[in-house]
């Protein structure tokens, strides 16, 4: 390459290509995405967050929670299990048949074959589809995360490090009063937690004429001195509202599971 013009062209071709591929194309494919419907249901998904939870996402962003927490569940595969719903007219034969069959952790083909055998003996079955993988086994979600889950997030906080657990379904695991205790004194609810406490989101104040209804009910070793109470500031309440709103487990066309 003899002059700057060619270097410019090289950069233009290379970066222009990846710009079209990783900026323009995803926007064309997903930028106009709308709510989808839950599989085998007429419910729409996702639902927009409530006001407090929306503000809570901004606290999550401002305090950089995504530095240690992901919001994406991985899945290694799916497994089928055959459930007997009706033993039919000859339950004994069905029981004998079932004891000779493997009915869980099957591929779709094997599950269909087992269901066919039971149907031939007169029983009725349902096939349940479940997601598999360590994240699922840890109870972090029922299925993998998909693009639909993030439709209303601004900013999208996928995270890239799991110094703490995944939070895609934090709302399904704990309510906001647990979240508040955990934010103020992580070790009070999770023994040996490595999460730093977020005491600055709370106010320790003298109890007035009567205790605040919001005051945290802390175990004695984490409680403030007598006559004082720990009251969450509005940021803490919003963050807890956001965390307890996090759920991404409904079955979708792109990530089917049995409800």
């Amino acid at each position, binding site marked *: 390459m003899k002059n*700057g013009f060619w270097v410019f062209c090289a950069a233009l071709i290379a970066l222009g290509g990846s710009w079209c591929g990783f900026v323009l194309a995803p926007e064309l494919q997903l930028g106009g995405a709308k709510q989808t419907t839950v599989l085998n249901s007429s419910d729409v998904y996702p639902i927009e967050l409530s006001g407090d939870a929306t503000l809570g996402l901004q606290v999550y962003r*401002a305090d950089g929670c995504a530095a240690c927490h992901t919001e994406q569940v991985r899945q290694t595969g799916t497994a089928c299990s055959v459930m007997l719903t009706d033993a039919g007219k000859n339950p004994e034969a069905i029981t004998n048949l079932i004891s000779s069959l493997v009915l869980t952790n099957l591929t779709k083909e094997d599950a269909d074959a087992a269901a066919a055998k039971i149907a031939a003996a007169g029983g009725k079955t349902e096939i349940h589809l479940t997601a598999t993988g360590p994240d699922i086994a840890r109870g972090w979600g029922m299925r993998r995360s998909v693009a639909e889950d993030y439709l209303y997030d601004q900013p999208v906080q996928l995270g890239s490090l799991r110094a703490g657990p995944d939070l895609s379904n934090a709302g399904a695991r704990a309510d906001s009063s647990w979240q508040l205790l955990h934010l103020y004194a992580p070790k009070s609810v999770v023994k040996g937690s490595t999460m730093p406490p977020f005491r600055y989101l709370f106010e320790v104040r003298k109890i007035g004429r009567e205790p605040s209804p919001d005051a945290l009910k802390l175990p004695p070793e984490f409680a403030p001195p007598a006559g004082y109470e720990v009251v969450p500031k509005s940021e803490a309440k919003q963050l807890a509202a956001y965390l307890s709103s996090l759920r991404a487990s409904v079955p979708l066309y792109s990530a089917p599971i049995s409800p």
Partner: protein
Amino acid sequence: MNKDLKSNTSAEVDASLRLPLLALFGGAALWLVLGSVLAMIGSIKFHAPDFLANYAWLTYGRVQPAADDALLYGFCIPAGLGVLLWLIAHLGQVPMRGVIVPLFAANLWHLGVFIGLAAVLLGDSTGFAWLEFPRGGSVVLFIAYLLLALWAMMNFAARRERALYPSHWFLVAALFWFPWIYSTSNLFLVAWPVRGVVQAVIGWWFADNLLFVWLALVGLGAAFYFLPKFSGRPLQTYYLALFAFWTLILFGTWCGIPPGAPVPAWLPATGSFAAALTIVPVLTIGVIMVQTLRGGEKCGGLGGPFCFVCFGTGAFLLSSLMFLAMAWPRFAVVTQFTWFDPAQVQLQLYGFFAMTMFGAIYYLLPRVVGFAWPFPKLARLQFWLSTVGVLLLVVPLAIGGVVQGMKLNNPNIAFLEAAKAALFYFRFSTTGLLLILLGNLLFALNIFGLTFVWKLSLLKQALALIKAPLETGSASISLRRDKEVKA
């Protein structure tokens, strides 16, 4: 061009760059130290979660991004731009004109970093990795970059040596690269945000193109100049370098979408495919490096600029291989979401880029300022502190990441146990960060010492000017000053 004329021009080029380079490197040294202090604070929080927990601005989620941004935007980019200006002016043998503009732009850049870091610590981060600076900071950075790039391009266009050296390709491409990716991602993520997970895709595209491609372009552009210079052997070879350049920008720019990301499957698949192809330029660069250094002189002694650049290029090869490995789905299953990823990033930012820049700056700044380093022994000590520091930081963190990843993949091991498995390795990496902090302090000490020596000499000259008998004429003295300094 005859040799006398050339050395004369080189001195002119150096003198013309003095003010902007001192501004770029001085500010960069400051952010480098601040960044490692912030990184230390963040690291200590893993050993003692209660440490500084009452201050919102020092919470881990703010300190850690601020530390990363201080290293990348505070040190790496301005240091890279300074070295780039020097290389372009030297390769073209043209002194920088209108120095006031790059001087202004250098200060503007550091102002932008200040605004951005303050915003991140105060909780006004945008929430996107490597793009945390909100509008107030990013617009300032963008304008400063454009001014510096414009002046670099004008100098490039006016070059007297018309033929391009391989470093030119890398550096000129880098000049275009950053404004494009920075404007795209700030417009689509912050100004008029796209919806949903497209944000994440653009974020990954940006991070790959800045941390992998831009840093590689500038760092290798510098290495391809300094390695042949120090070893006394020409670059081996021009055509291999051309091949590495093309394949690096063609394939490297498509990496970065992690396998298994919650996006349409073609995106991570493309990313993994591109990463597999990017092994070609990385290995080519390894061949170029080995061939250029083999049989060359080992000038400069242990801990000199040569060692810095050699270590930096070696770290580039290792960090690139780690980066590409993370795009391989079977490996990513273990390392994704673990400390392996931060380990690779630190190796890329500090082990490769910062170390290469230290070497370049230790070589060029005394020539630019016209004085020797005030503490040359401390510069050599910094090499050892930074080398041992970055190895202690990165190697245990990468191993700890793999261990953590294997435990995370076994659901029978409690999450907390998996997370705590990394803490053992963290003891080493916190020690590494401490050594890096000390090394950075020595670097800053030398930069500020040199600036001080230079300012002192200016003061002496001014005093001499005042004391001098009137008939000497003030104008001729100020002209003579430059020549004396060079001699």
